[in-house]
């Protein structure tokens, strides 16, 4: 595989808890069973189940799933905070599972830093010394590590609070300390384990924007664990959706929303405001008549929501242009079809000629979808990653756990 391009490369990874856990992944009679059956048969709990994926350099890779789906175990396996039971795991092409303790510590010290749901701050230390803690472990001298810690503290917006103790900070501020501590080591990858789940919604949004901003500024690779679909869609370049320890679908937010791999995923994304996720290019058709000369000009990766706003404002279809070249237009019928989640053949387009184009929405579900956006819709939230993320990921099709690697 393209080892230089992927930071983490995971193949067939298993984590099984319980007595004689190691026998489970290798036994085809057991691996054919469901997780519940395996537990009944062997007393072992399968937390991560034959998972394969690559984390590409510079992307935000989100692992999403409900509690108990194994996502937190998975992220801990990446730096062997939890020892995987079977499989292959490489970082920058180097076999992580073969590392001796010293080399592993080296990895944790310099290459991958983690942000935790419950912060894990040292209660007896000031903010400054908490942020400098990772550097202290590396053996950096006091003056230098404090100077670097101060820089990072300023970067996460905590300047002036250096001498506070964790119990004097709000939850959001504590998590900023956790973030700063991870950043202080200047790691290659940041791992987030449900970092904002313990925060209240407004603070959570602030923190999500903070992470999006950091990613935009530094382009650091991030692996982000969450159970919150809105958070996953907002931050993720690609999302791996987990259930019972296995990845059921891996793809861009758009793919997850528009082409769910199975009923489970479909159920999951049912209430997602798809106009926030799907780009206008999905609703595009060739221009007819003077449509090429009128209407607001949009980029192909503008969201359908922006298209709706433009069409509603102008009363005429909006134009889609890339580098000054007209690609097509979107009209209200096609935009509404996206919002409604209709399949192409269900949509009663005004112009039948245009409707048969290759631009019909693929993979849309047949049954009707509640067109009301879900209550979690966050209409004003900026989609910070849009600028850095090319929407070029080809459709990986269904069942990505069998072939998750998009070459």
């Amino acid at each position, binding site marked *: 595989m393209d080892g230089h391009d992927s930071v983490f490369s995971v193949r067939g990874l298993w984590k099984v808890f319980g007595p004689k856990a190691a026998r489970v992944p290798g036994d085809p009679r057991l691996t054919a069973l469901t997780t519940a059956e395996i537990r009944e048969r062997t007393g072992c709990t399968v*937390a991560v189940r034959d998972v394969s994926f690559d984390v590409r350099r510079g992307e935000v890779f989100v692992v999403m799933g409900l509690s108990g789906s194994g996502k937190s175990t998975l992220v801990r396996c990446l730096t062997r905070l939890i020892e995987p039971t079977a499989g292959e795991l490489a970082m920058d092409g180097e076999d992580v599972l073969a590392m001796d303790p010293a080399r592993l510590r080296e990895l944790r010290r310099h290459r991958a830093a983690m942000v935790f749901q419950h912060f894990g701050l040292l209660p007896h230390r000031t903010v400054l010394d908490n942020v400098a803690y990772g550097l202290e472990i590396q053996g950096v001298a006091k003056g230098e590590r404090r100077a670097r810690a101060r820089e990072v503290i300023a970067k996460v917006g905590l300047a002036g609070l250096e001498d506070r103790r964790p119990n004097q900070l709000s939850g959001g501020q504590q998590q900023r300390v956790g973030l700063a501590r991870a950043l202080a080591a200047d790691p290659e990858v940041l791992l987030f384990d449900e970092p904002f789940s313990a925060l209240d919604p407004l603070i959570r949004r602030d923190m999500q924007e903070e992470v999006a901003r950091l990613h935009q500024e530094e382009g650091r690779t991030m692996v982000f664990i969450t159970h919150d679909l809105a958070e996953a869609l907002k931050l993720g370049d690609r999302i791996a959706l987990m259930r019972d320890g296995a990845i059921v679908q891996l793809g861009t937010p758009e793919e997850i929303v528009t082409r769910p791999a199975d009923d489970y995923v479909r159920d999951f994304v049912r209430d997602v405001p798809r106009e926030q996720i799907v780009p206008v290019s999905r609703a595009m058709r060739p221009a007819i008549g003077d449509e090429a000369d009128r209407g607001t000009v949009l980029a192909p990766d503008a969201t359908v929501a922006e298209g709706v706003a433009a069409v509603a404002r102008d009363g005429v279809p909006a134009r889609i242009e890339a580098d000054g070249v007209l690609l097509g237009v979107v009209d209200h019928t096609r935009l509404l079809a996206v919002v409604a989640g209709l399949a192409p053949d269900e949509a009663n387009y005004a112009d039948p000629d245009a409707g048969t184009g290759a631009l019909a929405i693929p993979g849309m579900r047949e049954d009707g979808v509640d067109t009301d956006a879900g209550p979690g819709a966050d209409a004003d939230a900026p989609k910070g990653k849009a600028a850095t993320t090319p929407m070029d990921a080809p459709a990986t099709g269904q069942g990505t756990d069998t072939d998750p690697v998009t070459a």
Partner: protein
Amino acid sequence: MSTVTTSRPIVDGERPPGHTDAPGRRRTRRLVRPSTPMVLLALALLLPTAALLGGGGWPQALRVDLVPALDSFADWVVDNRETHPVFLYFLLHLSNAATDSVAWVHDLLTAAGWAGVLTAATALAWYAGGAGRRGAGPALIALGSLAGCGFLGLWEQATETLALMLVSVVVAVVLGLLLGLAGGLSDTAQRILRPVLDTMQVLPSFAYLLPLVLIFGIGTPSALITTVIYAMPPMVRMTTLGLRGADPAVLEASRSLGSTSWQRLWTARLPMARPQLLLGLNQTIMMALSMVVIASVVGAGGLGESVYQALKTRDFGQGLTAGLAIVLIAVWLDRTTAAAGARGGVPVGRRGTGLVLVAAGGGLLAGSSAGGEWPEAVTVDIAAPLNTVVDWLVGNLYQDVPVLGGTSVWAGNFTSWVLNPLNNGLQALPWWSLLLLAAAVALLVGTWRGASTAVLALSCIGVLGIWDKALYTLSQVLVAVALTLLLGFAIGILAARVRTVERLLRPVFDAMQTLPQFIYLIPVVQLFNAGRVAAITAAAVYALPAVVRVTTQGLKQVSPAALEVSRSLGATTWQQIRDVQWPLARPALLVAANQGVVLVLAVVVIGGLVGGGALGFDVVKGLTAGELGTGLIAGAGIVCLGLALDKLTQPAGRPALTHHSH
């Protein structure tokens, strides 16, 4: 849904404490625990038959007389103490190190002079409190307490006690830390340590004086080692607790940053355990202080010696004066360590540290030039007026009180109507029926394992040939425990329901628990005459605070919701106590009973000094008259009795009880 929660993944090798042995315990209990009515029925049939059959006493055939063997061993030890390699190359060094270090600290304190010690202690207390305004309280208490010792005219004795205390606390803390580290970091070590600590906690300290005296003779080493053994368990326990209680999220974060296990211990585990470590230090100091008098029996001088002498001469004034000095030292050390704990690890500023150093240094210089002796002119004699009060009390209460009769009459009646019948009844019962009774009670209260331990311990007493003496002691313990529990539960219920009572009792009980056990003996001996009644009364008074405290806590922890429900249904106060508070507080009450038993036993043994007789008397005789064989066996008997009584009152699955000194 998977049982593995993603927010708290199960880490290999980490299991919730107690997880491993839980199923086993449950199984044994389900299998063998008989129903209460069945056991009671069996007892009701058995005991009268047993009493009718008569007999009593432990059969001669089942006894092993170890006294001659032990005596000859003791003789051998005494003969070879100077020459045998084990003594020469190990124990002698230990003994010398103990003597030298205590002497060295004593010299240091003397050289610093009273002014030096006073300023240094005050500065230290101020530093512990954060060297700011909040340090003023501890500093004043330190100053007042130590000056108080001087005013009482006991400066020299206080210095001697302090020297022994400092050395024994340092040794106990260092050893406790090491053992606690082992227990905190290794499950195997924890499994080994826990039963040992549990057993040490119920042993009357008197029991292990003799072996030490045998090896080291009467003197500083014996006193030091006794104190260390007695004071160390809380340090071990609290260290283990602190290390095991470390927030796993922090440890994982530390691990994720690439820390070595040593770095994790040093930067995360130990600092986070700071409150528990300081609490352990605090408890260790208090325990060491409570040993001051007992240590004086085996050769420690100082305040303990004053109390011990006062007990011998029945000089209550002198005894209480010295006891007061011990309490003052306890208050000082307690507040200083508590202040350090309350500070929560906030570092002291550079200016504060400098000030403290300058003050302490200046004080030490001034003190060393002024000399070590507290000026005679600045002392107050409170012994004489105290004795006048006691004499008056005794003179008016002892006998010939109209209608009531007087204390000596009470004591006589109590002995002939309660103590003697109980003792005779116990002696008359066949030995096997007592074993059965013990097994039945232990099964009803606790576990199968507890029952077998209790029976085994009682059998040991029989085999050692001290069955009759042990029963004599047991009858006193039973009466004292009944008295304590009756009073304790009554006061406890009152305190739980009436807030004012609790507030009034708290400071009194705090002081009572710090006073050495011996102090209680002096006035009761004078009131009740030397004998069993005095020992029992002293024991009941001594154990009362702990029983009241645990009872009150237990009753107050009863869920307010349950109480509210019963109130809303129109229950009377008595119904609330009987139907809601009592059953829900039952575990706490059992713990209270257990504490009562352990504490009472400790004092009843000491009561041997004032005519309590039997086992305690034998131990004292062994110490003072050189009859080591008899003394050692009596000591072993006390240990067995303590173990048996503990198991008889130890509820199943009880968490390690907090020690009585706190």
